Protein backbone atom coordinates (compact mmCIF):
# COMPACT_ATOMS: atom_id res chain seq x y z
CA UNK A 1 0.00 0.00 0.00
CA UNK A 2 1.22 3.51 -0.68
CA UNK A 3 0.56 6.73 1.19
CA UNK A 4 1.66 10.06 -0.24
CA UNK A 5 3.49 12.28 2.27
CA UNK A 6 3.86 16.02 1.62
CA UNK A 7 7.21 17.24 2.94
CA UNK A 8 7.61 20.86 4.09
CA UNK A 9 10.52 22.96 2.81
CA UNK A 10 12.62 22.79 6.02
CA UNK A 11 12.80 19.00 5.67
CA UNK A 12 13.38 18.72 1.95
CA UNK A 13 17.15 18.52 2.38
CA UNK A 14 16.49 15.06 3.81
CA UNK A 15 14.33 14.03 0.85
CA UNK A 16 16.76 15.16 -1.88
CA UNK A 17 14.55 18.22 -2.49
CA UNK A 18 11.48 16.09 -3.11
CA UNK A 19 8.24 17.72 -1.95
CA UNK A 20 6.41 14.39 -1.81
CA UNK A 21 7.51 10.92 -0.73
CA UNK A 22 5.61 7.65 -1.07
CA UNK A 23 5.57 5.60 2.12
CA UNK A 24 3.93 2.58 3.69
CA UNK A 25 2.31 1.96 7.04
CA UNK A 26 -0.97 0.89 8.58
CA UNK A 27 -0.94 3.90 10.87
CA UNK A 28 0.97 7.15 11.43
CA UNK A 29 3.51 5.48 13.71
CA UNK A 30 4.41 2.91 11.09
CA UNK A 31 4.48 5.62 8.45
CA UNK A 32 7.10 7.48 10.48
CA UNK A 33 9.30 4.35 10.48
CA UNK A 34 8.82 3.92 6.75
CA UNK A 35 9.70 7.57 6.19
CA UNK A 36 12.86 7.13 8.25
CA UNK A 37 13.84 4.14 6.10
CA UNK A 38 13.64 6.16 2.90
CA UNK A 39 14.92 9.45 4.36
CA UNK A 40 17.33 8.65 7.18
CA UNK A 41 17.40 11.29 9.91
CA UNK A 42 13.93 12.64 9.30
CA UNK A 43 12.32 11.01 12.32
CA UNK A 44 14.66 12.79 14.72
CA UNK A 45 13.50 16.09 13.27
CA UNK A 46 9.84 15.25 13.79
CA UNK A 47 9.98 13.39 17.09
CA UNK A 48 11.61 14.14 20.44
CA UNK A 49 13.90 11.86 22.47
CA UNK A 50 10.91 9.85 23.70
CA UNK A 51 9.68 9.22 20.19
CA UNK A 52 6.69 11.56 20.60
CA UNK A 53 5.90 14.06 17.83
CA UNK A 54 7.43 17.45 18.68
CA UNK A 55 4.95 20.07 19.85
CA UNK A 56 5.43 22.33 16.82
CA UNK A 57 4.83 19.55 14.28
CA UNK A 58 1.32 19.16 12.86
CA UNK A 59 0.37 15.96 11.06
CA UNK A 60 -2.68 15.83 8.84
CA UNK A 61 -4.28 12.77 7.28
CA UNK A 62 -6.51 13.75 4.36
CA UNK A 63 -6.81 17.33 5.63
CA UNK A 64 -7.62 16.42 9.24
CA UNK A 65 -5.22 17.08 12.14
CA UNK A 66 -4.37 13.71 13.68
CA UNK A 67 -5.00 15.19 17.13
CA UNK A 68 -8.68 15.18 16.14
CA UNK A 69 -8.29 11.54 15.01
CA UNK A 70 -6.33 8.89 16.90
CA UNK A 71 -2.97 10.65 17.09
CA UNK A 72 -0.05 8.52 15.91
CA UNK A 73 -2.36 5.47 16.01
CA UNK A 74 -4.54 7.01 13.28
CA UNK A 75 -5.05 4.24 10.68
CA UNK A 76 -3.92 4.77 7.09
CA UNK A 77 -5.15 3.29 3.85
CA UNK A 78 -3.64 3.09 0.42
CA UNK A 79 -4.20 6.40 -1.39
CA UNK A 80 -4.32 8.52 1.79
CA UNK A 81 -2.46 11.80 1.76
CA UNK A 82 -0.44 12.86 4.78
CA UNK A 83 0.89 16.40 5.24
CA UNK A 84 3.49 17.55 7.72
CA UNK A 85 3.06 21.23 8.55
CA UNK A 86 4.92 23.49 10.94
CA UNK A 87 2.79 25.61 13.31
CA UNK A 88 1.97 29.03 11.86
CA UNK A 89 1.42 32.47 13.37
CA UNK A 90 -1.97 34.05 13.23
CA UNK A 91 -3.67 36.45 11.21
Amino acid at each position, binding site marked *: MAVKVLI*PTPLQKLTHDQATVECDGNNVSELLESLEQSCPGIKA*RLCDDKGEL*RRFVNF*YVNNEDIRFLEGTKTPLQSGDEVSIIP*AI*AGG
Partner: protein
Amino acid sequence: MTQAPSSTQAPTATFKSLKCKECGEEYELKAAHVCEFCFGPLEVTYDYSLLKQITSRDTIQAGPASIWRYRSFLPVASDDPIDVGTGMTPLLQSHRLARRLGLKHLYIKNDAVNMPTLSFKDRVVSVALTRARELGFSTVSCASTGNLANSTAAIAARAGLDCCVFIPADLEAGKVLGTLIYSPTVIAVEGNYDQVNRLCSEVANTHGWGFVNINLRPYYSEGSKTLGYEVAEQLGWELPDHIVAPLASGSLFTKIYKGFQEFIQVGLVDEKPVRFSGAQADGCSPIAEAYRENRDFISPVKPNTIAKSIAIGNPADGIYAVDIARKTNGTIESVSDAEIIAGMKLLAETEGIFTETAGGTTVAVLQKLVEAGKIDPEEKTVIYITGNGLKTQEAVQGYIGEPLTIDAKLDSFERALERSHTLDRLEWQPVLV
Protein backbone atom coordinates in the same frame (compact mmCIF):
# COMPACT_ATOMS: atom_id res chain seq x y z
CA MET B 1 37.07 65.27 -1.63
CA THR B 2 35.35 62.84 0.65
CA GLN B 3 31.77 63.33 1.53
CA ALA B 4 30.93 63.79 5.17
CA PRO B 5 28.62 61.17 6.61
CA SER B 6 25.12 62.48 6.58
CA SER B 7 21.97 61.52 8.39
CA THR B 8 20.61 60.08 5.16
CA GLN B 9 23.13 57.27 4.99
CA ALA B 10 21.92 53.74 5.52
CA PRO B 11 21.21 53.19 9.20
CA THR B 12 23.16 50.65 11.18
CA ALA B 13 21.54 47.24 11.12
CA THR B 14 21.09 46.01 14.65
CA PHE B 15 19.56 42.61 13.91
CA LYS B 16 21.94 39.70 13.68
CA SER B 17 20.39 36.33 12.99
CA LEU B 18 17.37 34.07 13.18
CA LYS B 19 17.47 31.77 16.18
CA CYS B 20 15.29 28.81 17.07
CA LYS B 21 13.29 29.52 20.20
CA GLU B 22 13.35 25.83 21.12
CA CYS B 23 16.85 24.48 20.41
CA GLY B 24 18.86 27.67 19.83
CA GLU B 25 20.09 26.76 16.33
CA GLU B 26 20.99 29.94 14.42
CA TYR B 27 20.26 30.83 10.79
CA GLU B 28 21.15 33.64 8.42
CA LEU B 29 18.60 36.45 7.95
CA LYS B 30 16.62 34.83 5.13
CA ALA B 31 12.93 34.11 4.56
CA ALA B 32 12.46 31.17 6.91
CA HIS B 33 10.30 30.61 9.93
CA VAL B 34 10.92 27.10 11.18
CA CYS B 35 13.99 25.39 12.60
CA GLU B 36 15.21 22.62 10.33
CA PHE B 37 16.23 20.54 13.32
CA CYS B 38 13.26 20.69 15.68
CA PHE B 39 10.50 22.61 13.88
CA GLY B 40 10.58 25.29 16.58
CA PRO B 41 9.77 28.90 15.57
CA LEU B 42 12.61 31.22 14.55
CA GLU B 43 13.08 34.54 16.30
CA VAL B 44 15.14 37.59 15.27
CA THR B 45 18.15 38.35 17.50
CA TYR B 46 19.73 41.80 18.00
CA ASP B 47 22.96 43.35 19.13
CA TYR B 48 21.69 44.97 22.32
CA SER B 49 24.97 46.64 23.23
CA LEU B 50 24.90 48.39 19.86
CA LEU B 51 21.24 49.30 20.37
CA LYS B 52 22.12 50.76 23.73
CA GLN B 53 24.82 52.92 22.12
CA ILE B 54 22.70 54.29 19.30
CA THR B 55 19.29 54.77 20.90
CA SER B 56 18.02 57.02 23.63
CA ARG B 57 14.69 58.55 24.58
CA ASP B 58 15.76 61.61 22.59
CA THR B 59 16.62 59.75 19.40
CA ILE B 60 13.26 57.97 19.53
CA GLN B 61 11.31 61.16 20.20
CA ALA B 62 13.08 62.84 17.29
CA GLY B 63 11.82 60.08 14.96
CA PRO B 64 8.60 59.98 12.93
CA ALA B 65 5.17 59.74 14.58
CA SER B 66 4.87 56.10 13.53
CA ILE B 67 6.32 52.72 14.44
CA TRP B 68 9.47 53.73 12.56
CA ARG B 69 10.59 55.90 15.48
CA TYR B 70 11.64 52.45 16.84
CA ARG B 71 13.32 51.42 13.58
CA SER B 72 16.56 50.32 15.24
CA PHE B 73 14.54 47.77 17.28
CA LEU B 74 12.94 46.34 14.15
CA PRO B 75 14.42 43.76 11.71
CA VAL B 76 14.83 45.93 8.61
CA ALA B 77 17.96 47.34 7.00
CA SER B 78 16.45 49.96 4.63
CA ASP B 79 16.68 53.64 5.38
CA ASP B 80 13.30 54.10 3.67
CA PRO B 81 10.94 51.62 5.31
CA ILE B 82 7.33 51.53 4.11
CA ASP B 83 5.87 54.22 6.35
CA VAL B 84 2.09 54.49 6.03
CA GLY B 85 1.75 56.28 9.33
CA THR B 86 1.07 53.13 11.28
CA GLY B 87 1.48 53.20 15.04
CA MET B 88 1.56 55.93 17.70
CA THR B 89 -2.13 55.33 18.28
CA PRO B 90 -3.76 56.96 21.32
CA LEU B 91 -3.19 55.64 24.83
CA LEU B 92 -6.29 56.92 26.59
CA GLN B 93 -6.67 57.11 30.32
CA SER B 94 -10.06 55.59 31.02
CA HIS B 95 -12.40 57.41 33.38
CA ARG B 96 -15.87 56.09 32.76
CA LEU B 97 -15.03 52.43 32.10
CA ALA B 98 -12.57 52.53 34.99
CA ARG B 99 -15.24 53.92 37.34
CA ARG B 100 -17.76 51.34 36.14
CA LEU B 101 -15.30 48.54 36.96
CA GLY B 102 -13.90 50.11 40.13
CA LEU B 103 -10.37 50.57 38.78
CA LYS B 104 -8.29 53.66 39.47
CA HIS B 105 -5.61 53.53 36.79
CA LEU B 106 -6.98 51.98 33.62
CA TYR B 107 -5.55 52.84 30.18
CA ILE B 108 -6.75 51.86 26.72
CA LYS B 109 -4.27 51.40 23.87
CA ASN B 110 -6.54 52.13 20.95
CA ASP B 111 -5.40 50.34 17.78
CA ALA B 112 -8.99 50.43 16.52
CA VAL B 113 -7.75 53.64 14.89
CA ASN B 114 -4.39 52.35 13.69
CA MET B 115 -3.50 53.40 10.14
CA PRO B 116 -4.16 52.58 7.38
CA THR B 117 -6.59 49.68 7.93
CA LEU B 118 -7.78 50.09 11.51
CA SER B 119 -6.13 47.19 13.30
CA PHE B 120 -2.78 46.41 14.92
CA LYS B 121 -1.94 44.30 11.85
CA ASP B 122 -0.70 47.41 10.06
CA ARG B 123 2.27 47.34 12.44
CA VAL B 124 3.36 43.80 11.59
CA VAL B 125 2.64 44.18 7.88
CA SER B 126 4.64 47.41 7.60
CA VAL B 127 7.64 45.54 8.97
CA ALA B 128 7.01 42.35 6.97
CA LEU B 129 6.63 44.11 3.62
CA THR B 130 9.65 46.32 4.21
CA ARG B 131 11.64 43.16 4.87
CA ALA B 132 9.98 41.35 1.92
CA ARG B 133 11.23 44.11 -0.38
CA GLU B 134 14.73 43.82 1.08
CA LEU B 135 14.69 40.06 0.49
CA GLY B 136 13.64 40.56 -3.13
CA PHE B 137 10.04 39.36 -3.10
CA SER B 138 7.74 40.90 -5.69
CA THR B 139 4.58 39.06 -4.56
CA VAL B 140 3.38 39.08 -0.98
CA SER B 141 0.68 36.96 0.54
CA CYS B 142 -0.95 35.90 3.79
CA ALA B 143 -3.42 33.56 5.43
CA SER B 144 -5.85 35.73 7.28
CA THR B 145 -8.91 35.92 9.50
CA GLY B 146 -9.59 39.30 7.87
CA ASN B 147 -7.58 42.07 9.49
CA LEU B 148 -4.28 40.79 8.16
CA ALA B 149 -5.75 40.51 4.65
CA ASN B 150 -6.95 44.15 4.83
CA SER B 151 -3.55 45.30 5.94
CA THR B 152 -1.43 43.23 3.57
CA ALA B 153 -3.54 44.27 0.56
CA ALA B 154 -3.47 47.97 1.49
CA ILE B 155 0.22 48.25 2.28
CA ALA B 156 1.19 46.10 -0.73
CA ALA B 157 -0.80 48.53 -2.89
CA ARG B 158 1.11 51.46 -1.40
CA ALA B 159 4.45 49.70 -1.89
CA GLY B 160 3.64 48.50 -5.42
CA LEU B 161 3.94 44.81 -4.57
CA ASP B 162 1.71 42.12 -6.09
CA CYS B 163 -0.59 40.62 -3.52
CA CYS B 164 -2.59 37.41 -3.10
CA VAL B 165 -4.44 36.78 0.16
CA PHE B 166 -6.19 33.70 1.50
CA ILE B 167 -9.20 33.94 3.82
CA PRO B 168 -11.81 31.55 5.18
CA ALA B 169 -14.93 31.76 2.97
CA ASP B 170 -17.24 32.68 5.89
CA LEU B 171 -15.58 35.97 6.91
CA GLU B 172 -17.53 39.10 7.83
CA ALA B 173 -18.56 41.09 4.74
CA GLY B 174 -16.72 44.23 5.90
CA LYS B 175 -13.44 42.39 6.07
CA VAL B 176 -13.84 40.91 2.60
CA LEU B 177 -14.83 44.24 1.07
CA GLY B 178 -12.04 45.98 2.97
CA THR B 179 -9.58 43.69 1.20
CA LEU B 180 -11.08 43.64 -2.30
CA ILE B 181 -10.99 47.43 -2.60
CA TYR B 182 -7.18 47.30 -2.94
CA SER B 183 -7.47 44.85 -5.88
CA PRO B 184 -5.34 41.99 -4.65
CA THR B 185 -6.16 38.42 -5.67
CA VAL B 186 -8.44 37.14 -2.90
CA ILE B 187 -8.80 33.40 -2.44
CA ALA B 188 -11.73 32.45 -0.18
CA VAL B 189 -11.14 28.93 1.09
CA GLU B 190 -14.04 26.69 2.16
CA GLY B 191 -12.78 25.89 5.64
CA ASN B 192 -11.68 27.49 8.91
CA TYR B 193 -8.57 29.59 9.44
CA ASP B 194 -6.44 26.62 10.43
CA GLN B 195 -7.28 24.93 7.16
CA VAL B 196 -6.45 28.13 5.25
CA ASN B 197 -3.14 28.24 7.05
CA ARG B 198 -2.33 24.66 6.18
CA LEU B 199 -3.04 25.30 2.51
CA CYS B 200 -0.87 28.42 2.59
CA SER B 201 2.05 26.47 4.05
CA GLU B 202 1.90 24.28 1.00
CA VAL B 203 1.61 27.25 -1.37
CA ALA B 204 4.53 28.97 0.37
CA ASN B 205 6.59 25.85 -0.27
CA THR B 206 6.02 26.01 -3.99
CA HIS B 207 5.34 29.55 -5.24
CA GLY B 208 8.27 31.55 -3.92
CA TRP B 209 6.03 34.25 -2.49
CA GLY B 210 6.62 36.22 0.69
CA PHE B 211 3.91 35.07 3.09
CA VAL B 212 3.92 37.62 5.87
CA ASN B 213 2.80 35.15 8.53
CA ILE B 214 4.62 32.10 7.19
CA ASN B 215 8.10 32.46 5.69
CA LEU B 216 8.36 36.14 6.77
CA ARG B 217 6.91 35.45 10.20
CA PRO B 218 10.07 36.13 12.26
CA TYR B 219 10.21 39.68 10.82
CA TYR B 220 6.45 40.23 10.72
CA SER B 221 5.85 39.30 14.34
CA GLU B 222 8.52 41.74 15.56
CA GLY B 223 6.22 44.58 14.48
CA SER B 224 3.98 43.81 17.47
CA LYS B 225 6.77 44.86 19.81
CA THR B 226 5.88 48.44 18.96
CA LEU B 227 2.67 48.00 21.00
CA GLY B 228 4.94 47.52 23.98
CA TYR B 229 7.31 50.38 23.14
CA GLU B 230 4.53 52.88 22.55
CA VAL B 231 2.75 52.13 25.81
CA ALA B 232 6.02 52.54 27.70
CA GLU B 233 6.78 55.83 25.96
CA GLN B 234 3.21 57.14 26.29
CA LEU B 235 3.17 56.36 30.01
CA GLY B 236 6.18 58.70 30.34
CA TRP B 237 8.90 56.06 29.85
CA GLU B 238 7.47 53.76 32.44
CA LEU B 239 6.05 50.26 32.28
CA PRO B 240 2.50 49.52 33.45
CA ASP B 241 1.76 47.05 36.28
CA HIS B 242 -0.55 44.85 34.26
CA ILE B 243 -1.61 44.38 30.63
CA VAL B 244 -4.62 42.55 29.21
CA ALA B 245 -4.49 41.57 25.52
CA PRO B 246 -6.41 39.25 23.20
CA LEU B 247 -4.88 35.89 22.29
CA ALA B 248 -5.22 34.39 18.83
CA SER B 249 -1.94 32.70 17.89
CA GLY B 250 -0.34 34.19 21.02
CA SER B 251 2.25 36.12 19.01
CA LEU B 252 1.10 39.66 19.92
CA PHE B 253 1.17 38.82 23.62
CA THR B 254 4.71 37.43 23.50
CA LYS B 255 5.97 40.39 21.48
CA ILE B 256 4.55 43.00 23.86
CA TYR B 257 6.51 41.14 26.51
CA LYS B 258 9.65 41.15 24.36
CA GLY B 259 9.20 44.88 23.71
CA PHE B 260 9.09 45.68 27.43
CA GLN B 261 12.11 43.45 28.12
CA GLU B 262 14.14 45.13 25.37
CA PHE B 263 13.39 48.60 26.69
CA ILE B 264 14.58 47.47 30.12
CA GLN B 265 17.67 45.87 28.63
CA VAL B 266 18.83 48.99 26.80
CA GLY B 267 18.00 51.23 29.74
CA LEU B 268 15.07 53.17 28.28
CA VAL B 269 12.79 52.23 31.20
CA ASP B 270 13.34 50.97 34.74
CA GLU B 271 12.87 47.32 35.37
CA LYS B 272 9.64 46.35 37.07
CA PRO B 273 7.35 43.33 37.11
CA VAL B 274 4.48 43.57 34.63
CA ARG B 275 1.62 41.07 34.85
CA PHE B 276 0.44 39.66 31.52
CA SER B 277 -3.17 38.48 31.20
CA GLY B 278 -4.68 37.05 28.03
CA ALA B 279 -8.21 36.99 26.63
CA GLN B 280 -9.88 34.32 24.51
CA ALA B 281 -13.42 33.45 23.42
CA ASP B 282 -15.00 30.33 24.95
CA GLY B 283 -15.67 29.11 21.41
CA CYS B 284 -11.93 29.02 20.67
CA SER B 285 -9.88 28.89 23.85
CA PRO B 286 -7.07 26.37 23.42
CA ILE B 287 -4.58 28.66 25.19
CA ALA B 288 -6.90 29.39 28.12
CA GLU B 289 -7.54 25.64 28.46
CA ALA B 290 -3.83 24.80 28.50
CA TYR B 291 -3.37 27.51 31.15
CA ARG B 292 -6.27 26.26 33.29
CA GLU B 293 -5.18 22.65 33.03
CA ASN B 294 -1.56 23.52 33.74
CA ARG B 295 -0.38 21.83 30.55
CA ASP B 296 2.84 22.51 28.65
CA PHE B 297 1.25 21.75 25.28
CA ILE B 298 -1.72 23.07 23.34
CA SER B 299 -4.54 20.78 22.25
CA PRO B 300 -6.03 22.23 19.08
CA VAL B 301 -9.76 22.95 18.90
CA LYS B 302 -12.28 23.66 16.15
CA PRO B 303 -13.39 27.28 16.52
CA ASN B 304 -17.01 28.23 16.98
CA THR B 305 -17.29 31.87 18.05
CA ILE B 306 -18.30 35.28 16.74
CA ALA B 307 -14.78 36.46 17.55
CA LYS B 308 -13.45 35.35 14.18
CA SER B 309 -10.37 37.54 14.18
CA ILE B 310 -8.99 35.57 17.14
CA ALA B 311 -10.45 32.18 16.21
CA ILE B 312 -7.24 30.22 15.75
CA GLY B 313 -7.73 26.64 16.88
CA ASN B 314 -4.07 25.69 16.57
CA PRO B 315 -2.15 28.67 17.97
CA ALA B 316 1.55 28.57 17.12
CA ASP B 317 2.74 30.75 20.00
CA GLY B 318 0.11 29.55 22.45
CA ILE B 319 2.54 27.74 24.67
CA TYR B 320 4.80 30.80 24.95
CA ALA B 321 1.78 32.90 25.93
CA VAL B 322 0.98 30.39 28.69
CA ASP B 323 4.60 30.59 29.90
CA ILE B 324 4.49 34.38 30.08
CA ALA B 325 1.13 34.50 31.89
CA ARG B 326 2.48 32.04 34.45
CA LYS B 327 5.84 33.64 35.05
CA THR B 328 4.44 37.17 35.33
CA ASN B 329 1.68 36.16 37.74
CA GLY B 330 -0.97 37.03 35.16
CA THR B 331 -3.78 34.80 33.98
CA ILE B 332 -5.64 33.66 30.85
CA GLU B 333 -9.42 33.73 30.76
CA SER B 334 -12.14 33.12 28.22
CA VAL B 335 -15.63 34.59 27.82
CA SER B 336 -18.83 33.68 26.00
CA ASP B 337 -20.06 35.29 22.78
CA ALA B 338 -22.79 37.08 24.78
CA GLU B 339 -20.14 38.51 27.09
CA ILE B 340 -18.07 39.59 24.06
CA ILE B 341 -21.01 41.57 22.65
CA ALA B 342 -21.62 43.09 26.09
CA GLY B 343 -17.92 44.01 26.21
CA MET B 344 -18.09 45.75 22.83
CA LYS B 345 -21.13 47.73 23.97
CA LEU B 346 -19.58 48.60 27.32
CA LEU B 347 -16.44 50.03 25.71
CA ALA B 348 -18.50 52.00 23.20
CA GLU B 349 -20.90 53.39 25.82
CA THR B 350 -18.25 54.35 28.34
CA GLU B 351 -15.29 55.38 26.19
CA GLY B 352 -16.59 56.13 22.71
CA ILE B 353 -14.54 53.34 21.12
CA PHE B 354 -16.23 50.99 18.68
CA THR B 355 -14.06 47.89 18.69
CA GLU B 356 -14.48 44.57 16.95
CA THR B 357 -15.12 41.25 18.64
CA ALA B 358 -11.48 40.80 19.73
CA GLY B 359 -11.72 44.07 21.67
CA GLY B 360 -15.03 42.97 23.16
CA THR B 361 -13.29 39.80 24.30
CA THR B 362 -10.55 41.81 25.99
CA VAL B 363 -12.99 44.13 27.77
CA ALA B 364 -15.15 41.18 28.88
CA VAL B 365 -12.11 39.38 30.26
CA LEU B 366 -11.00 42.57 32.04
CA GLN B 367 -14.43 42.74 33.66
CA LYS B 368 -14.28 39.07 34.61
CA LEU B 369 -10.85 39.49 36.21
CA VAL B 370 -12.07 42.51 38.19
CA GLU B 371 -15.12 40.60 39.41
CA ALA B 372 -12.92 37.67 40.43
CA GLY B 373 -10.67 40.00 42.43
CA LYS B 374 -7.71 39.30 40.12
CA ILE B 375 -6.95 42.98 39.42
CA ASP B 376 -5.95 45.34 42.20
CA PRO B 377 -7.80 48.68 41.70
CA GLU B 378 -4.48 50.47 42.29
CA GLU B 379 -2.69 48.60 39.50
CA LYS B 380 -1.80 50.61 36.42
CA THR B 381 -3.58 48.39 33.90
CA VAL B 382 -3.42 48.72 30.10
CA ILE B 383 -5.91 46.94 27.83
CA TYR B 384 -5.04 46.46 24.19
CA ILE B 385 -7.87 47.16 21.75
CA THR B 386 -6.58 45.76 18.48
CA GLY B 387 -9.32 46.21 15.88
CA ASN B 388 -12.26 48.31 14.70
CA GLY B 389 -15.94 47.46 15.11
CA LEU B 390 -17.01 48.85 11.75
CA LYS B 391 -15.47 45.75 10.18
CA THR B 392 -17.60 43.28 12.15
CA GLN B 393 -21.00 44.93 12.22
CA GLU B 394 -22.77 41.56 11.96
CA ALA B 395 -21.58 40.72 15.47
CA VAL B 396 -23.68 43.41 17.16
CA GLN B 397 -26.54 43.66 14.67
CA GLY B 398 -29.77 43.16 16.60
CA TYR B 399 -28.20 43.90 20.00
CA ILE B 400 -27.91 47.66 19.87
CA GLY B 401 -31.42 49.07 19.58
CA GLU B 402 -32.83 50.94 16.61
CA PRO B 403 -33.34 54.53 15.54
CA LEU B 404 -36.65 56.12 16.58
CA THR B 405 -38.27 56.87 13.23
CA ILE B 406 -40.64 59.85 13.30
CA ASP B 407 -42.53 62.27 11.06
CA ALA B 408 -40.83 65.63 10.53
CA LYS B 409 -43.02 67.26 13.15
CA LEU B 410 -42.23 68.64 16.58
CA ASP B 411 -44.93 66.65 18.37
CA SER B 412 -43.67 63.41 16.78
CA PHE B 413 -40.25 64.21 18.17
CA GLU B 414 -41.65 64.98 21.63
CA ARG B 415 -43.55 61.69 21.72
CA ALA B 416 -40.49 59.76 20.55
CA LEU B 417 -38.32 61.45 23.19
CA GLU B 418 -40.84 60.61 25.90
CA ARG B 419 -40.91 57.04 24.68
CA SER B 420 -37.13 56.76 24.70
CA HIS B 421 -36.99 58.04 28.27
CA THR B 422 -39.59 55.47 29.28
CA LEU B 423 -37.58 52.77 27.58
CA ASP B 424 -34.43 53.93 29.37
CA ARG B 425 -36.26 53.73 32.69
CA LEU B 426 -37.41 50.21 31.93
CA GLU B 427 -33.89 49.33 30.77
CA TRP B 428 -35.58 48.18 27.63
CA GLN B 429 -33.72 45.74 25.46
CA PRO B 430 -34.77 44.88 21.95
CA VAL B 431 -35.98 41.33 21.62
CA LEU B 432 -35.16 39.44 18.45
CA VAL B 433 -38.16 37.76 16.88
